[in-house]
């Protein structure tokens, strides 16, 4: 059981939270401009790092607010949390983990 520090309420048991996957995935500004490959990227492709991961959580059994966290996916340690916002948390740019593979 992880102890997750909600930025609004403080540390609470993992069972109070629901997971929201990768943080900072924004809806494409002009969906019509995307081809099928780019749309697939948006819908189905997410970072899956072994190490630090910027991700979303919601404190469903508490303040019910979403927030961003940077968590280590091997040790499960939460390194930092911050309220929802446009900036990737922990100063780690979201792009830095994105490798542009040749998946056409």
């Amino acid at each position, binding site marked *: 059981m992880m102890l997750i520090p909600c930025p609004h309420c403080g540390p609470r048991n993992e069972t109070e939270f629901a997971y929201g996957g990768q943080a900072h995935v924004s809806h494409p500004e002009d969906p019509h401009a995307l081809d099928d490959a780019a749309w697939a990227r948006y819908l189905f492709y997410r970072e899956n790092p*072994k190490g630090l991961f910027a991700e979303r959580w919601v404190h469903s059994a508490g303040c019910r607010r979403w927030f961003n966290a940077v968590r280590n996916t091997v040790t499960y340690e939460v390194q930092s949390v911050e309220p929802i916002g446009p900036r990737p948390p922990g100063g780690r740019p979201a792009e830095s983990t994105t490798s542009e593979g040749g998946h056409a």
Partner: protein
Amino acid sequence: MAVPPPEHPDFLWRNPEPKSSYDVVIVGGGGHGLTTAYYLAAHHGITNVAVVERGWLAGGNMARNTAIIRSNYLWDESAAIYEQSLKLWEQLPEELDYDFLFSQRGVLNLAHTLGDVRESRRRVEANRLNGVDAEWLSPEEVQDVCPIINTGDDIRYPIMGATYQPRAGIAKHDHVAWALARRCDELGVDLIQNCEVTGFLKDGNRVVGVETTQGRIHAGKVGLAAAGHSSQVAEMAGVRLPIQSHPLQALVSELFEPVHPTVVMSNHVHVYVSQAHKGELVLGAGIDQYVGYGQRGGFHVIEDQMAAAVELFPMFGRAHVLRTWGGVVDTTLDASPIISKTPVDQLYVNCGWGTGGFKGTPASGMTFAHTIAHDEPHPLNVPFSLERFETGFLIDEHGAAGVAH
């Protein structure tokens, strides 16, 4: 008493040094890597093959799973590949000359809500149309198959019926790996343990080898079967995969006399139980919700599954948890695997089996070997391509596979 497992010789395969080059290198020495090598060697005559494994053979999910084998999936594409797999399971003990305790004791998939009942009955009809043995059972018939289950209405989610697949069952997963490893070795395949792939050699858009912790190995073709680590490995080759890796846990009790004659699974209350040949109760649950590579999950997941198990099987209330463990499962958004060519030439990927790839091991290897040997998918894995995420032809098996295994 429960049946003791058969005795083994001390060594079942050589532990060779890697050669400088192979026709095919398979990355990952779990069940899928091993069956792929087996089918390449035995059915395609490609024996200059290495399986390179970061740790020890079957140290990943292969010997961590709860060993459930069934083929009662909803969609035509899945029913076809999983049923082929079940047919291969039925012949593999003889083909590999190894009794790995494949036991067709049937599986009950319980229904606890009206929604479950509708989904289950629909799946039974779909299964029958696809030649998969399937029946819908009333609670009384469930009790006939599994007398120790509580079909009363004194529990939170009473049993409203179940689907039953009599040909489903379990096998002893570590012995399956050893059976495959021994035969691969006899056919000339090099099984190389403690050999982690750390990079890829490329010539333009074509893969020509791998960098490993035991040096550079050239390869005509490379097949990835790295399960929970598939996205890390593929990324080193410049290929992104639509995979999220999650912890998945299981546990066993102490040994008991045989009391549980079949396999029981419940998606709704998130538990599945069988009794292994040795006598321990084997229980598993759903994945932990977050991305995780720690090979461990939260204890509350185990508490939940135990609560469900004890409601369904009151007599298990006095059993003890002997051991719990976790694996890293590679999930896709449609709960179906990817067995596919990739955008890189001569590089192939087999992943996304998530929580349910043990049962698929034979067909996975068969179709992946075909894909590698012919540079074209086998008809059974055409639908399981990477492209489906772009074309939208997803194979949504969340009903039959999402929680279950």
